[in-house]
């Protein structure tokens, strides 16, 4: 998930560059050879850096880390409605620091050092609805009066919001618990209204990726702080085409922050979060390029992942621990997007097909990318094994 978030961050950065630079297509701004996707590979002096052996503390780390350049709260969910029709949804809140901590402006009215972007999507069948919001805040704003800030995160009781899009703890006030949470986000009017009002209940523990939450993103050692809650049981209502229906299913929340995520040579990524029917979870991504320490222009791909038992025990997967192979592509938004993959994790005896039942999951946000539900099946027998989400950027 994190890489796809990265891509979204690039979206954000590209948005930064393109909002006011009309006539400059997003393709141009995303195809950067030496600063990585949307500038995410830039050096980021003045910011704090993600390093191994930084211990995560909760609930504090649920909140924002404004000294880091980028951060997100990223939820995907595989649900079904009362009639058993599958339905996917996404809700993401991105944060970007506009400047290093040392250059922050005084907190006068409207002055901002944090830029926020939120994406929501609902997918069912051929339908795929997308909405996007932006906001600003100052990291020194008093969040206890949350009308003082358009967007913000409070760690306890947990509350993340941008306007009326909100993810917040629904337990008793003062509780440190990260569960249960309620998520509300709506967009559009009347017939075109869509959105959701959901309750998220954790069925397992938080999972730290990489080395105790430090997730390396390139061979040169750079990376991010990365943990997930992959065990959400979700119930609630989804509104689509102005009609509301009850839904339930599984969700996966990613939390990641960093100041420099990509090697300058990396051009995009493919990222997977999978729920196996037997209770296992799998997170796997590959960054295309930057997979070695050579000075080659492109470099090899860099792969990383986590195999999670039904009890939440993580096993980090290194570059050589799994193979992702694209099997078939679909034409989406004028590009060829791999919508069928083969994923092999020999150590976990996994050899599966990962396939998107619907190819049109293109996110028509300020910087576009592909994000949608996938189904997994045993490669040998074809037996359905579960479901999940796939994100692909840089195509």
């Amino acid at each position, binding site marked *: 998930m994190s890489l796809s978030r990265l891509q979204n961050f690039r979206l954000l950065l590209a948005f930064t560059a393109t909002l*006011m*630079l009309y006539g400059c297509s997003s393709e141009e701004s995303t195809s950067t050879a030496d600063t990585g996707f949307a500038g995410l590979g830039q050096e980021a002096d003045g910011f704090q850096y993600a390093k191994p052996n930084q211990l995560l503390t909760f609930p504090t780390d649920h909140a924002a880390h404004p000294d880091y350049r980028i951060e997100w709260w990223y939820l995907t969910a595989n649900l079904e409605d009362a009639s058993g029709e599958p339905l996917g949804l996404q809700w993401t809140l991105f944060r970007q620091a506009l400047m290093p901590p040392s250059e922050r*402006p005084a907190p006068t009215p409207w002055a*901002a050092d944090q*830029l926020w972007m939120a994406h929501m999507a609902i997918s069912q069948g051929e339908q795929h609805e997308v909405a996007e919001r932006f*906001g*600003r805040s100052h990291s020194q704003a008093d969040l206890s009066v949350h009308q003082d*800030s358009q967007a913000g995160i409070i760690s306890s009781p947990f509350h993340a919001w941008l306007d*009326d899009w909100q993810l917040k703890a629904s337990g008793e006030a003062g509780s440190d618990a990260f569960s249960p949470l309620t998520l509300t986000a709506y967009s559009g*009017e009347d017939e075109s209204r869509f959105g959701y009002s959901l309750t998220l209940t954790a069925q397992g523990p938080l999972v730290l990726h990489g080395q105790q939450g430090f997730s390396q993103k390139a061979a040169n050692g750079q990376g991010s702080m990365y943990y997930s809650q992959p065990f959400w049981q979700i119930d609630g209502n989804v509104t689509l085409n102005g009609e509301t229906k009850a839904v339930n299913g599984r969700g996966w929340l990613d939390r990641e922050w960093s100041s420099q995520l990509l090697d300058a040579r990396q051009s995009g990524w493919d990222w997977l979060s999978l729920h196996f029917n037997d209770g296992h979870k799998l997170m796997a991504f590959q960054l295309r390029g930057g997979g070695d320490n050579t000075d080659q222009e492109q470099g090899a791909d860099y792969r990383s992942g986590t195999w999670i038992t039904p009890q939440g025990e993580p096993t980090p997967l290194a570059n050589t621990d799994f193979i992702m192979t694209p099997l078939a592509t679909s034409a989406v938004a004028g590009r060829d997007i791999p919508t069928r993959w083969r994923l092999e994790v020999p150590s976990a005896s996994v050899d599966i097909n990962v396939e998107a039942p619907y190819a049109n999951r293109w996110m028509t946000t300020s910087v576009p990318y592909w994000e949608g539900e996938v189904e997994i099946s045993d490669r040998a027998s074809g037996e359905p094994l579960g479901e999940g989400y796939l994100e692909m950027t840089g195509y």
Partner: protein
Amino acid sequence: MIKALPTVLATLLAHYRRHPGQLAMLLLGLWVASALWSGIQAINATARDSYARADAMFDTQLDQLERRDGAPLTRADYHALRQAGLPVSPMLEGEVVTQDGTRLTLIGIDPLTLANNNPLAQADSSGSLTDFMTAPWQTRAAPDALTATTTLANGKALPPLVLAPAIPPDTLIMDIAAAARLLQSGEEITRLVAAPGALAEAPAGFTLTRATRIATPGQLTESFHLNLTALGLLAWVVGLFIVQAALGLALEQRLGMLRTLRVLGVSGRSLVLALSVELLLLGLIGAAAGIASGVWLARLLLPDVAATLGSLYGAGVGRELNLPWHYWVGGLAVSLGGLLLAGGGVLWRAARLNTLELGQMQAWRSGYRRQLMLMSIGGAFVAGVALALYGWLRFQPPGDGLVAGFALVAALLLASALWLPPLLALVLKVLTHLARRRPLVHWALADMQLQLPKISLAMMALLIALATNLGVGSMVGGFRLTFLEWLDQRLVAPLYLNAPAEQYTDIDAWLADHPDVSERLLTRRSEAILESIITPKGSRALGTPIELYGITPGESLTPHWPLLATQQDRDTAWADFSHGAAFVNEQLATAENLSPGDQLNLRAPGVSETLTIAATYPDYGNPSGQVLMASPQLAARFNAPPSSMGVVLHLNADVDALREALTERFGLGSDALSDQREIKRIATEIFERTFTITRALNVLTLAVAALALLASLLAQARSRRQQLAPLWALGVPRAQLAQLSLVQLGGAALVTGLLALPLGIAITWSLVAIINVAAFGWRLPLHLFPWEMAVTLATAVAVALLSAALPALRFWRASPRTLLAEEANQ
């Protein structure tokens, strides 16, 4: 034959070497015609560009929210609305003054929440969102708003400038954080906006104004520009009169040459071709000069125009010309088109030239009689058109027919102009007959008949200029009288108070106890949608936005407040008014064809009311429709916030003392209190400015007509002297002959001036009764000013005498030898 063209052309042009005066006159005409026209078009084009930029920006493309209680909007309001899911965006607006004294509108925006297809996003040039949103921020401005200094009068510095041509004139755009610092606005914001239609309805506690309801400056100022265009067209026509006169003269004098050329074997087509090339050549020179001076003229007038539009309509117009490419092409096309129009007759005559026919006075004399006949018939036809237009307008609802109104004025002018030469000829004929016993007078009159063809075009131009001058002058004069009287009637309190809405209750209570205060005239303001109207003929659905204005109908106001029409009488109207009936302003009554007794269905958020119209009232200078109610009624029924308060004092009360006491007691700003004199002064100033341009253009047109006359006279000065010389030889002293020349022309001008009087009155009438009603929505009483008329006559004669003075002086000062030589050379 084409090979011969240069030779033919050179031969034709040689004429101008011998008669540089004719060339000068021709170019003068072209120059003047295209200068005034292109000057006005330059102003219009610049204004249109400004409107387009303003339209494309915020006001007219975004719905707006205001607080129902009139209190300023705050950041908390914004966040609360966002957290309620409403897609609103904050804006800060204020004025900053740079060190060099330039006043600029500063707009602070939040690019993140502003509807993202808003042109602001495109109004940009370079730089990233981060640069826009973070220190040192950016100032975006169009090139015409860029000032030399980025330091403000208060010592603060603007963020670095970034060029963004699409931003309206005199406007700076920056991030709301930077704007808040410069404007020291704290938690307050000026407005909340949303993409059109994004809000289904106004949230509780707010009023919502739809983008489509906000009239664009382009619409409001349309009539103003039509006015300017009409004046430009007038100047163009007057200029073409000169061109036509010069071309006619040049052709007449070259008839012999043309015949010789034909005899020498130049084909008629080549001749016409050569003449066309000559016309084109002259046209290009004249048009180029004209457009250049037009741009200069526009640059000169633009600040006044901009000030007028700003004060009349609140429309911002750049003070720097901004001319699109089609302006230049259009200017050239109009100039050349005019030349073709004026020169078409010449070409036609040249094409039909009879090789054998000799240039005979006789043919010419009968030709002129035929021309007079044609003019009379043409004049009658155009007068018929005018009559038809008038008839048609009578059956139109008032307020319609702006273009028809202008067409009526044009037809009147044209008909009168066409009739002028036949009229002058007739007058001369009658007078000649009467003056048989006075040989010199007789001669002078007869001679005038002979001169008539040469000066009639100039006289026509003079007539048009005079009549327009009188018409516009009377309209402006009448407007001034009416407007000043109306101001007096409306401004009954010596002191007016403009305080924050929440303070009025306290101030009102305090004033109520003040011994010097006799009455408090609280006004309230709000807006509503006029859903439908119910008249005796049935009801009509409308959906027009209107202003609601509340006044206090007390004893100081009601006796003076002007009313135009009431259902029964004034007293009843005011009694009904106090009990909830409404008055509507003339603009609204005209636009929607309302009269007292009709009913209005008004809707405001959460309110739906039906009001009966008790009266209509004049509301000069207001571009929108207004419904007037008693303040308490407006407060009770529409929840309208207070907007100002007139304070009426007892006789001999100390205004200044009260003023000071109020300021001190309530901590009011320096501009919260204004006295009546001040308001009147400002209003009068705006009024004067409104007509500065009109008057300037009028004077210019008159000057052009005078030039036309002078040019015609100069062009025939030589042949005039040749005609006068034998008379002198017969024993008429030179001085007497010179005087006679003056009297001749003065007399013709006097007749022209006399004709201009009724014509001018007709134009005044058209302006006040048709054009103003259609353009502004109010009708002025028709005022006639004998003094203006006397001035018109005097102007006519003065213009003629001035024009005739130079040739007459030259004749009078000519040595006998010169006269003799001319006489002998003949």
